């Protein structure tokens, strides 16, 4: 195992005119290993997007240090580090720079000095991966919400990054589209060892992660495997989060007197237990 990202006692406060501004990030430390899929969850305003911006070096911590690819993030290293990262922001409109979909996806490749012969197929491939190959000459700002998110994802994939940060990147996709995009990212993780940090409110997506970081009021509240995190249903509820559908349903069924032994995160597991305990006697 090799470290790819670490935060060491990081704090950040936005500059505002408030008399008593509060810390958006408050003494956060964690380490991510190369090739991990990390889900970051937390209530609105808990600091997730701020973390993403800090990891990209769009701003620097007031306290503490961030190390990416084993190098400390600072003015000297930020460009090289950023060229190996892909990010999809929460609002895709904020990241479009090109006047057509294909120019937009090509833009960051051009910036990173990818030669033209290599650029064209990469742009086309990544747009095809998110099923936007028919929109090459459309204006990115003049697309539907879900189409914008797909283009933003294609832009990040085209970079062939070592680390991909997704900030609620699929929040406006239809369920099928969401599954497709997640499958593409998961394939890249398996085939190429891509490291994924996915900020999400989608608890079913959290189940796919190797590890979950739970943010609460700017602090890391818990980290652990999804099943470890979801074992703390009451704590999660108390900070504005929830359990996946199958766990919620298991709880409800128990209340209605159904005997369920295990903790089930997915529908399949729950159906399996109901099958074994009730039919397979």
């Amino acid at each position, binding site marked *: 195992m090799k470290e790819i990202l670490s935060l060491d006692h990081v704090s950040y406060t936005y500059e505002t005119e408030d008399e008593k501004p509060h810390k958006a990030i408050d003494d956060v430390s964690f380490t991510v290993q190369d090739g991990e899929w990390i889900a970051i969850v937390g209530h*609105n*305003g808990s600091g997730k*997007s701020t973390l993403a911006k800090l990891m990209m070096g769009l701003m620097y911590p007031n306290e503490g240090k961030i190390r990416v690819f084993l190098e400390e993030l600072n003015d000297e290293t930020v460009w090289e580090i950023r060229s190996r990262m892909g990010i999809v922001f929460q609002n895709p409109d904020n990241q479009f720079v090109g006047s057509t979909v294909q120019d937009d996806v090509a833009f960051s490749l051009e910036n990173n000095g990818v030669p033209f012969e290599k650029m064209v197929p990469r742009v086309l491939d990544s747009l095809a991966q998110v099923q936007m190959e028919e929109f090459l000459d459309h204006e990115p700002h003049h697309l539907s919400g*879900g189409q914008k998110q797909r283009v933003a994802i294609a832009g990040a994939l085209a970079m062939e990054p070592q680390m991909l940060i997704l900030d609620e990147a699929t*929040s406006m996709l*239809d*369920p099928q589209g969401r599954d497709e995009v997640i499958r593409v990212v998961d394939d890249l993780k398996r085939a190429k060892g891509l490291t994924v940090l996915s900020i999400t409110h989608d608890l079913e997506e959290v189940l796919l992660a190797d590890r979950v970081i739970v943010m609460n009021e700017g602090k890391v509240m818990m980290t652990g495997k999804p099943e470890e995190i979801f074992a703390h249903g009451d704590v999660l509820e108390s900070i504005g989060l*929830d359990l996946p559908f199958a766990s919620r*349903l298991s709880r409800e069924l128990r209340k209605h007197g159904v005997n369920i032994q295990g903790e089930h995160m997915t529908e399949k597991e*729950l159906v399996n237990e109901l099958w074994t305990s009730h039919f397979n006697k």
Partner: protein
Amino acid sequence: MDISFQQVGYSYAVGTPFEKRALYDVNGSIASGSYTAIIGHTGSGKSTLLLHLNGLLKPTDGVVRVGDVNITSHTKSKELKTIRKQVGIVFQFPEHQLFEETVEKDIMFGPMNFGVPAEEARTRAHELIKLLGLPEDVAKKSPFDLSGGQMRRVAIAGVLAFQPSILILDEPTAGLDPRGRKEIMELFYTLHKEQNLTTILVTHSMEDAAQYADNILVMHEGRSVLSGTPEEVFSNADKLSEYRLGLPRTVAFQRDIEKLFGKSIGRLALTEDQLAIAVSQALKEEGER
């Protein structure tokens, strides 16, 4: 106010090289005081259709009727004044409707624009800040210095503040945390019932469509292709999959259980409560046999 679409067609950027047909022959009607969900794949035309309801877009073909106002390609903007007061739209991207210097001013804008005195508008703004679960200290902040989910809440507050009688919600829960999602969907439902609002919800959550709507309209490639009650629409799994849509988790789970039983376990489960009751009942009966 009843709403209807008659053979509505719409093209973006007509007469330019970017002309793009987004709607073809959309038909449907929405009764005053009903709750309608519009579902459909990415790019199927849902947001485009919604923008016709307060005349932000005018149909290229056909007629959109809102109450007794007909909106066609010839309708003048000033004829739409009465509608604009009645129709509140929460846009898909909250950033598209925030513009004032402070959150408080942003929420006050709608009511003041329609003649509500400043003091009353301010009172409403502060009530809504609380109701939408925003921290009290956001009032004086810029709406752009907020997190994504906080902006969403401000955008919703700004629409509720002018108390529209038709409430149009374009994926209003995208970006909300799980508790916010639940509470704000419940808030819309309570307002819908108490104030008899006509509510139109565009959503990718089949669960929300199943749970809250009286009627569902399915859009596919710019056309209205299916409509009915949630029971009717979600009984039609094959048709939905043609439109690249799936079932709500509750119904999908019910189908899995029914496969085990080899028979139906009752009516379509549109909520988690209904599902838990149906499944536990069926298991009990099975045990007694």
